[in-house]
């Protein structure tokens, strides 16, 4: 009996302890619906439904994916040099990366915005912002090339950008870092932030036909950090909304010091009135220096101009342009629903999502329902602008987009999920985990008047174990969800290039038929074009040598060049004579320091600068597999001593060996 009771006690104790394990939560496995594979499979030879333009973040490029397959279609170089095709290395593209600080070969491409007409995506251009040296780029969607880059004066950090008005009248660029203005003495102690530092919001006008950009005017605003923005739609068309944080105006340890105030702001700007004031001459001109670079498609050349002045209007002086709306807490996303009535702020440290009403904001302004002024700008009472709050949606709300059926979907960074909620009744409908910690999500047209509520693509910041490990540096992870039903269904998980901060997707039909297949060589206006092999030549002007060289399957003209001397500056102007689809040629030459290859499209001319460092023979060749005899597409250049008498000669197929230097090929 003793032994029995002893054993029973031991068993009971062990049981009690082990029963604690039944409380242990289990890891939830991914729940993927059964037909997910069918929904994302695009059969060989078939096209994806959507183009998905995704920002590359710290790679400075823009990637193009197809949806629903998640296949990477292209990387378009914008702010970073791209040795792959010579962007930033060819003489024609070097000016694109010029700034008032000199040539900057890299930037941080954060956000993208497709051009719109009447609130719908029109597929003409896509705009991109550069965060480090503040710039906005316009990419042409018929050639998928960067067509124009505009630097911004009086700016540092360009985060709240490149958001557009409904008809692409303006692209905005709001600063992230407040700094002294360009025409002030900037050599001041850092802790004079509140006195000396200011912020700017630039309004870049876009020409309706050509797309050419111009900094129309700048709005001078209090020194807070501007984060994201969107323009109004429909009834709120005249307004632009900017989220801002660091209203504490801290200059150090922002992690703590910019998180103190319970509410920061959304800045509402009546840009239509601002435009009227600017046109009426109410602004003042400031002397600045910023670069404006344009790529001409016909001459395949870019030019860089330094602009010298900008028109500035101060928000403090113009009493009816700017209003602050309190928004909890360090807001990030600032999104306007398709009707233009609701403005959603996502406070990344807040435990709720505030939804503001445009009508209520207008009424509050008319009734002067203000709680005071912040740095000269009236602050509207929170409750008077608020439509309602979504309570406890999750942790760390960041971005919101709309499905076109009266619902919004918001990313939750800290609780690693997306949450769908109804705008009218502010109730949560569905939540799905994402892997892991999403930053941005995008719905095709999700920030326009006509969202296509078929998919949501979530761009995550933490990858860890989603794919095969590739060392410590991992690709980012994106997930594709089907949102047509009541519950959001996970379909696909695919890695992305660089670090996506923003995506813009559009139905393929809007763009694919406008895509240029090749350039018409007859329209080529490059000053160094050779329109046929007869025009190929080598011309010396003192120390400068211009080589006009043509490419066609599978040879160069000329392919034997002699008479180059040490100390010459040689320019290779390469023209691809093909007039057919998908026949690019590449060009690379040995000993090209600080250069890369050229990738020349049919009908295009591109130039590579080359300065050989010693006499000798230098081969060049085509780098893109163009034909069956691609391997034979090559040439030689002879570089002689600086004082040599070797005449300048060039030819293809003529420079045969003579009898004196022709040993027989085979001997017995």
């Amino acid at each position, binding site marked *: 009996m003793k032994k029995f009771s002893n054993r029973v006690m031991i068993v009971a104790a062990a049981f009690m302890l082990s029963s604690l394990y039944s409380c242990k939560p289990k890891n939830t496995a991914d729940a993927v619906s059964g037909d997910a594979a069918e929904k994302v499979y695009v059969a060989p030879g078939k096209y994806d439904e959507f183009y998905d333009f995704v920002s590359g973040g710290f790679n400075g490029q823009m990637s193009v994916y197809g949806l629903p397959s998640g296949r990477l279609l292209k990387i378009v170089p914008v702010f970073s040099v791209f040795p792959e095709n010579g962007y930033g290395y060819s003489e024609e593209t070097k000016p694109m990366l010029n700034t008032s600080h000199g040539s900057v070969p890299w930037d941080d491409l954060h956000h993208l915005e497709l051009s719109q007409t009447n609130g719908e995506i029109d597929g003409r251009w896509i705009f991109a912002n550069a965060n480090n040296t503040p710039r906005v780029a316009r990419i042409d969607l018929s050639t998928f090339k960067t067509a124009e880059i505009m630097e911004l004066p009086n700016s540092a950090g360009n985060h709240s950008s490149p958001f557009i008005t409904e008809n692409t009248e303006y692209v905005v660029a709001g600063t992230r870092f407040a700094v002294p203005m360009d025409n002030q003495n900037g050599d001041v102690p850092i802790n004079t932030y509140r006195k000396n530092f200011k912020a700017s919001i630039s309004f870049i006008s876009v020409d309706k036909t050509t797309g050419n950009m111009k900094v129309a005017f700048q709005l001078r605003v209090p020194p807070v950090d501007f984060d994201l923005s969107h323009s109004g739609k429909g009834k709120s068309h005249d307004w632009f909304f900017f989220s801002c944080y660091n209203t504490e105006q801290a200059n150090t340890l922002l992690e703590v010091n910019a998180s103190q105030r319970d509410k920061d702001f959304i800045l509402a700007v009546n840009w239509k009135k601002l435009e009227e004031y600017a046109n009426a001459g109410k602004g003042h001109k400031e002397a600045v220096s910023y670069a404006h670079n344009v790529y001409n498609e016909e001459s395949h050349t870019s030019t860089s101009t330094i602009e010298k002045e900008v028109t500035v209007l101060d928000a403090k002086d113009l009493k009816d342009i700017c209003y602050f709306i309190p928004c909890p807490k360090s807001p990030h996303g600032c999104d306007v629903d398709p009707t233009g009535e609701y403005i959603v702020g996502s406070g990344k440290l807040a435990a709720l999502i505030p939804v503001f009403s445009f009508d209520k904001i207008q009424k509050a302004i008319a009734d002067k329902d203000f709680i005071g002024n912040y740095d000269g700008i009236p602050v509207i009472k929170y409750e008077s602008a608020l439509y309602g709050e979504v309570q406890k949606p999750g942790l760390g709300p960041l971005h919101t987009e709309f499905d076109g059926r009266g619902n919004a979907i918001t990313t939750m960074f800290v609780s690693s999920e997306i949450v769908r909620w109804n705008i009218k009744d502010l109730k949560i409908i569905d939540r799905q985990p994402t892997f892991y910690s999403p930053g941005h999500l995008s719905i095709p047209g999700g920030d326009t008047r006509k969202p296509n509520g078929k998919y949501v693509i979530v761009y995550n910041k933490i990858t860890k*174990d989603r794919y095969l490990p590739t060392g410590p540096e991992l690709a980012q992870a994106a997930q594709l969800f089907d949102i047509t039903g009541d519950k959001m269904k996970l379909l696909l998980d695919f890695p992305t290039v660089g670090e996506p901060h923003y995506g813009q997707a559009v139905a393929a039909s809007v763009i694919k038929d406008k895509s240029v297949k090749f350039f018409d060589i007859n329209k080529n206006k490059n000053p160094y074009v050779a329109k046929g092999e007869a025009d190929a030549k080598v011309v010396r002007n003192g120390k400068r040598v211009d080589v006009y060289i043509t490419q066609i399957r599978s040879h160069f003209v000329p392919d034997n060049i002699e008479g180059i001397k040490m100390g010459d500056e040689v320019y290779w102007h390469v023209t691809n004579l093909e007039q057919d689809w998908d026949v690019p040629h590449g060009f690379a030459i040995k000993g090209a320091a600080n250069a890369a290859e050229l990738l020349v499209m049919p009908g295009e001319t591109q130039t590579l600068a080359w300065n050989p460092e010693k006499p000798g023979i230098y081969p060049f060749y085509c780098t893109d597999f163009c034909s069956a005899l691609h391997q034979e597409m090559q040439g030689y250049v002879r570089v002689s001593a600086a004082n040599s008498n070797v005449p300048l000669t060039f030819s293809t197929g003529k420079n045969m060996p003579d009898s004196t230097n022709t040993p027989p090929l085979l001997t017995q």
Partner: protein
Amino acid sequence: MKHSLSFKNSSRILLVLGALVLLAIIKLPMWRIDLQAPQYPEGLTLFIYPNHLGGDVDIVNGLNHYIGMKPLHTEDFFEFKILPFITIGFSVLLLLTAFVGKRWMLISVFILFIIFGIIAMIDFWRWEYNYGHTLNPDAPIIVPGMAYQPPLIGFKQLLNFGAYSIPALGGFLFVGVGILLFAVNVIELRYKKRVKAIINKQAVAAACALLLIGFSSCNSSPEQIVLGKDNCSYCKMPFGDARFGAELITSKGKVYKFDDAHCLFSFINENNSTKSNSKIYFIDFSGGHTFVPAENAVYLKSETFHTPMNGNIAAFQSQESLQVAMQKFPGTVLQWNELNTK
């Protein structure tokens, strides 16, 4: 030593075994807190050894600075200095007892052991309370009303982390030594057969009680409310806001969850059979996700709450926390029996 009063050999061996196990414990982790979060598929663990903190201490400290929790450092805890000595002390006592073989030593060591265990758990709870409630007011992330006291034993959801606190190997061995001591006590305390029978019956009864506790340890206490996943048992709406939540647990262990006092009372009215013998709990409005038994709570009714079904009642563990909340949400204070009539 008198023959009839000396310990059995098996008892001595058990005591020596216990002493050796205690020595081994010095090098083993006593307790573990496992943390799970969606963005940590690999999981995070904090190990508490007798003389230091181990596991992912640095990562946990890094994460906790956002919510203003003090970083954990081994040097800050006096417990790590004295625990190894206490453990060695017990080991020596066990060896002495095995050698000397006196019953009073046996009983004393056992009682000391139990007391030490209780004090250790109280100290652990006290430390956890301070750790979770002493928050830096300048912290970047402040969730109103939230405290981060890790669970003493068991599971608790803290923001996006599920914290799971259980003994580690050393802790289990410590308990094992305690059971071993108890067993030796029972064996050696020889009384007449009748008393023995009583003791044995008591032992069996104790074992059964332990078994029952073990069975129901996860069922009779309230379950966590999972926002967005759980639905209110009355109005069927998904939980968007847990602060006004309530739970009813029947005598059979079935748990009903409600997102509003209105739903709880409507449910009770329509299901008269559940009223008797059920336990009712409310979420403490001021204290994160903790539950208060309905009879122990005080209530504040205020129209400014805007609860999901307009019951507009929040429950509090203490008058003090209710008074604090009343400054923000003016209303009337009610007791449990006053609520029942609504």
